[in-house]
């Protein structure tokens, strides 16, 4: 062990470069893990964290809320199926919004903003509302809204007012919900009437506004899956999904996951390859020294132990440095995407890379075990 540390101290550049390579790889893996999760949460957080167990789209909507339109006959067909407990309308649009909070100092930056309109119910917790709030209260009247909490700094904080452009429709934020963005934009949950008014404000030519989606809760004794089956059987033009399926099947989500998995696979392969190659070459270079050590009585297990200690130390340092580099980045926002330090992902990758890295060094360990002390008298080493 002492020898292993001494060698590392004497060859700082060599080992330093390896630590740097591993640290950069770990940093990239963790950063992209955050990016993937942040992107998906930004895309569909508002679906994942709303309280309706079943969402009914029109098939034409292709599982995009804004793209779906439920004509009166489709709405009636969905409402009429067996097992329906509660039903509410959901309308969603993307609008140009101007935060008007005084603390912004008159800044006039506008934002693409999603407005999700739902039937408020008695306490503002109607179907389609956020499952929980991180601050404030649910809307109790028109022109009040719960906003996605990640956009507080942009003027979407508690008590702030938002003006929908063009027009004079003003919405006051009365509550905040975590991870509640849709389409990576600031998102407002308001009454259905507020949504209708926002549409009329932005497009005076709009006529005959229809709900995009129906939010449904099953009646007692019916599961969400049964309700989904019942609705889908009612009309080939209806597309009912459980909340989890609606989240997973939103266009783009699976493509994002697949793309990142491919990237992670390649990065995950590079780390053990680099580690394995490095220690294999170093073992070749040390062949004569290792043979001599074996000849003077050093057991193989000690030499292999030293090698594995070096591998673990290098990997540990690289992973720790990579995580340290990642920490400040993980506190930032990237465009509309809120990044965060993913502790479980960091632990998962640290363990995986450590196991793969140590595994890749077993090739070098095998070489060490193959050393015959008698070679010291002939001048041949493991590398010959």
């Amino acid at each position, binding site marked *: 062990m002492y020898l292993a540390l001494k060698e590392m101290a004497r060859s700082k550049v060599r080992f330093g470069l390896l630590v740097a390579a591993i640290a950069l790889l770990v940093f990239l893996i963790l950063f992209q893990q955050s990016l993937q999760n942040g992107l998906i949460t930004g895309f569909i957080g508002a679906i994942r964290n709303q309280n309706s167990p079943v969402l009914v789209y029109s098939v034409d909507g292709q599982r995009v809320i804004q793209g779906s339109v439920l004509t009166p006959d489709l709405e009636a067909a969905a409402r009429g199926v067996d097992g329906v407990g509660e039903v509410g309308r959901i309308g969603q649009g993307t609008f*140009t919004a101007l935060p008007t909070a005084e603390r912004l100092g008159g800044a006039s930056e506008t934002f693409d903003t999603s407005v999700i309109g739902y039937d408020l119910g008695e306490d503002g917790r109607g179907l389609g509302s956020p499952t929980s709030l991180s601050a404030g209260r649910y809307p109790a009247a028109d022109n009040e809204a719960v906003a996605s909490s990640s956009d507080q700094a942009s003027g979407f904080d508690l008590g702030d007012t938002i003006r929908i452009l063009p027009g004079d429709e003003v919405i006051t934020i009365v509550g905040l919900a975590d991870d509640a963005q849709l389409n990576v934009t600031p998102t407002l949950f308001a009454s259905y009437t507020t949504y209708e008014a926002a549409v009329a404000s932005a*497009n005076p030519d709009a*006529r005959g506004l229809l709900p995009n989606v129906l939010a449904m809760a099953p009646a007692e004794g019916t599961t969400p899956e049964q309700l989904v089956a019942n609705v889908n059987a009612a009309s*080939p033009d209806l597309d009912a999904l459980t909340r989890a399926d609606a989240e997973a099947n939103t266009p783009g989500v*699976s*493509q994002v996951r*697949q793309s990142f998995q491919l*990237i992670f696979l390649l990065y995950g392969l590079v780390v053990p390859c680099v580690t394995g190659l490095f220690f294999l070459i170093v073992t070749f270079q040390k062949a004569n020294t290792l043979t001599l050590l074996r000849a003077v009585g050093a057991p193989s297990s000690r030499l292999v132990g030293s090698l594995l200690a070096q591998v673990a130390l290098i990997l540990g340092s690289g992973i720790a440095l990579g995580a340290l580099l990642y920490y400040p980045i993980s506190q930032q926002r990237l465009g*509309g995407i809120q990044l965060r330090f993913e502790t479980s992902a960091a632990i998962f990758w640290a363990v995986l890379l450590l196991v793969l890295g140590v595994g890749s060094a077993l090739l070098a360990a095998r070489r060490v075990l193959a050393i015959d002390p008698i070679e010291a008298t002939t001048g041949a080493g493991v590398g010959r």
Partner: protein
Amino acid sequence: MKLALREMRRRPSRFVTATVILSLIAALLMLLGGLLDGLIRSSTGALRAQQAQAIVYSSTSQASLVRSRVDPDVRQAIEQIDGVTAVGGLGSAQLGARVPGNGPRDLADVALFGYELAPDGVPDPPADGQAYADEILKADGVTEGMTIQLGPARTPVEIVGFVKDTAYNGQGSLWASAATWRSVLLANRPDAQLADGVFQALIVQGDADIAGRIDEATGGATESLTVTEAVNAIPGVKEQQSTFNQIIGVTIVIALVVIALFFALLTVERSGMYGVLKALGARSGTLFGGVVVQAVVVTAIASVLAAALMVLLDALIPPGSIPLQITPVRIVLSAVLLLVAAIAGCLFSLRRVLRVDPASAIGTTV
């Protein structure tokens, strides 16, 4: 140089692992670049194809087609500006399309454009009720002469031909007359309908610097962008470009470090041999040149392997899943970046090569 190449021929196994690692890194670079190209291409084609000096949106629309509405009086004001040669309306509607032969729930995502001035590669507007389709819709079973049905109202549109590279927001585009677009919107998205004469955007041809003058003439009612600005204003485009480019940059740094590490180790191993060669009159420059040649050869082989892997991957990925676009330009660019990183990485070995003392050759075993 000869010596370096001969060593690679005689002891290829020494370079195999480094080649494998660099192939993985090269594949990563090409994959990241290919994903970026695929995402951008599938999001921006419809705007990139516009033959315009300015694309005019309403000022509060954030350059979003669906939120923009330009009234006829604004259009009239723009047509009267000196230097404007042609003005055409543009509108869009994103809908599901029922394709004959596909299942009742198996719809194609389409973006229908109503246009007056033909974009690059798109013929003049067809007769009402007809449309040109982007060729990516062929993957959904769309063929020439077929009539597809758009939206919940099942508005029929006949496909009269195909056009290339005009996708929008990841959807295959359809190019139809303004009247067809307006009728489809009215039947399927009454909430998004626009009055006669109102368009979502205007395509303006004329002087190169016309964009600024348009916004002046309309008194700030419009936001006029060049085609490049309009493409970059599509939500996510700039963010995707900057994020992917940063990741590609760090991956190149990793390649540089890996190459530096590998050749630093090889140089340490060869110190004795370098001492003998120097004692025989070889210059440091020649020896370092050999290291660079080996790095370039390893990188070139790795790039070729990675390119083959990516072309294979591109062929295997089913249309509509991962938005990967592998182009010769991206492959060459990735290879060049990797070569630069390889040469830079070799510089770490330069100091060690320079430090080798010819006198060390005396009494050493090579």
